[in-house]
Structures are given as structure tokens and as C-alpha cells.
């Protein structure tokens, strides 16, 4: 009878005490493509008021500042929103083309002539804006010559960031 008691008690206790000495779980991180471009217009206006500015090339070396955060290697392209500038003013010319502007990354020799065709401006590797090459200035070079009347001219420039 005593054995039976021990047996039953032991079995019950064993059922209660059955356990494990380790446990684990899995955590899955699903990382989606994330690309972010921030643009600062540091000097978006150019005023031509001296003969030298018409004769030579008007250069704005800090025209835009671009910062890129991306978890993919990237391409940055740019294009004009129209073939010609929109003109206002009595003597303004309606036919000043986008191509009077040339654009490049400050400090690099490659310079692109602005047009409505998207052109590759720069490439880089994944990383935050503090990573090498992910933050830079844009240089704008403008050379209208003497072919266009005095006035106010505007044109849009679109930067496009894509995965490489």
C-alpha cells in the first residue's frame, strides 16, 4: 500500500515537474528598401549684372546640397523640367534653352549639360548621409552669353534617386 502511494505520488509529482532546461525563439527582421534624398537650396538664384558675368561662365559651387540615406547602392540622376526657361519681363527671350546650364558634383570634373533627358549625376554606396560620398554639393555653371534679353528666367531641375 505504501509503495502504491509512493508510486502514485511520484508519478503525479513527475507530471508536475516535467520541464525543460532551455527554450528558444526566432526573431525575423524584414528590411525593405529605403532610400531618402534631402536637398537644400543654398543658392538657387543667379543675378547677372556685370559684363564679366555675361562674358564668362557664372559659377555657383554650392547651388544645392544633397544628402542621401539609402540601404541600397544608389544612382542620382537629374533633368530639366522643360527645354527652355520660362521668361518674364518686357525684354525677356522666350527661347533661352536649358542647355545654357551645366551641372556637376562639386569637386568632381564631370559636368553635365542640362536637358530634359535624365542624366546620371552621381553614384554611391548604401549607408547614411554621414557615409563617404553620400553628402555633397552641386555646382551650377550658367553661360547665357549675350543672346537673350534682360528679364527673369526660371527653370526646374529634378533629381531622381534610384537603386543601382
Amino acid at each position, binding site marked *: 500500500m*505504501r*509503495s502504491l502511494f*509512493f*508510486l502514485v505520488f*511520484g508519478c503525479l*509529482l*513527475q507530471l*508536475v*515537474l*516535467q*520541464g*525543460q*532546461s*532551455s*527554450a*528558444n*525563439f*526566432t*526573431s*525575423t*527582421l*524584414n*528590411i*525593405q*528598401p*529605403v532610400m*531618402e534624398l534631402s536637398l537644400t537650396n543654398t543658392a538657387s538664384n543667379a543675378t547677372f549684372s556685370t559684363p564679366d558675368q555675361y562674358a564668362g561662365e557664372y559659377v555657383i559651387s554650392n547651388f544645392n546640397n544633397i544628402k542621401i*540615406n*539609402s*540601404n*541600397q547602392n544608389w544612382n542620382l540622376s537629374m533633368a530639366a523640367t522643360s527645354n527652355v526657361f520660362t521668361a518674364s519681363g518686357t525684354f525677356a527671350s522666350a527661347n533661352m534653352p536649358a542647355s545654357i546650364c551645366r551641372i556637376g558634383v562639386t569637386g568632381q570634373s564631370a559636368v553635365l549639360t542640362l536637358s530634359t533627358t535624365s542624366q546620371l549625376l552621381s553614384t554611391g554606396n*548604401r*549607408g*547614411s548621409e554621414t*557615409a563617404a560620398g553620400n553628402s555633397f554639393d552641386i555646382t551650377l555653371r550658367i553661360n547665357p552669353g549675350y543672346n537673350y534679353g534682360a528679364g527673369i528666367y526660371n527653370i526646374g531641375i529634378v533629381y531622381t534617386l534610384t537603386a543601382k
Partner: protein
Amino acid sequence: MNKPLSEYSMHFLNAFLLLFLVSDAWSQSIQLQTGQTNFNFNTSSTLENAQVSVNAFSLSVYSFSNFSVYAKVSSVSSSSGVTMPASMVAIKLNTVSPSRSANFNPITLSTNNQQIIQSYYTLFWYVTYTYNLIIGPIGYDYPPGNQIFNILFTITSP
């Protein structure tokens, strides 16, 4: 005078059961319940800030002796070819039930066992430790894809 065989058997059985009970007296167990342990990173904000799953998992422990629980990242795998370090994962104790003293500081995990709980016996009762799971910030250095962490907990007696 010889005792009947059945009496020897009874003594043997009693001794066996006694050993059985004594061995169980050292018994301990850890049971895991999980909540939200998966994360989705789809914005700059989720990449740039630590992501926290509150009450992501609970460890229910009983032990007939003082005990320690250790945690480690037992494996990390990646679908993108770039594997995150184990240190990307941290845990933080949120609650203990029933209440007892514990380490409520964030603990960054590694591939080596780290003691996350050290406490005294619970006897038959479970003590449940509920943790937040913390990831990152992971930043922009890891390409799109899945990172799979396997996190292992082990209970031992000191």
C-alpha cells in the same frame, strides 16, 4: 528468517521512488511564451531608431534550487548575404510576476551566454519574467532582405 520476496521488492521500490523524488527535488524548468518578435523596417525612422516590441516574450521559471537563466544569440542568418551582429539585439525586463528582485537594465545580447536572471528557488510555483525585445537602430548598412535571429535561453543551478 528469510523475508518474502515481495517485501524486498517493496523496499527496492520505496528506495527507487525516494531517489526519484530526491532527483526531482533539484528539478527546474523554463517555459517560453512569445508575442510579437518580428520586425518590419520600411521607413527611415524605423532604420534610424531602435525598435521595441513591448512584452515580446515571457520566461516562466520554476526551480527547486537557486537558479540562473542565460541568454545568447545562437545563430544569425541573412537572405541578403550581409549578416547583422548579435549585438543588434537587446532585451529589457519589463515585469516579474510574482514580484521579486531582478535586473531591469537593458542587456545587449551576444553569441556567448550572458546571465540575465539570478534568483532563488520557486518550488512548485512559476515565476514569470516578461521582456521587451529591442532591435537596432540598424541604420542603412544592411541591404533589403530578412535577418533571422535565433535566441536561446538556458536555466542552470549555480
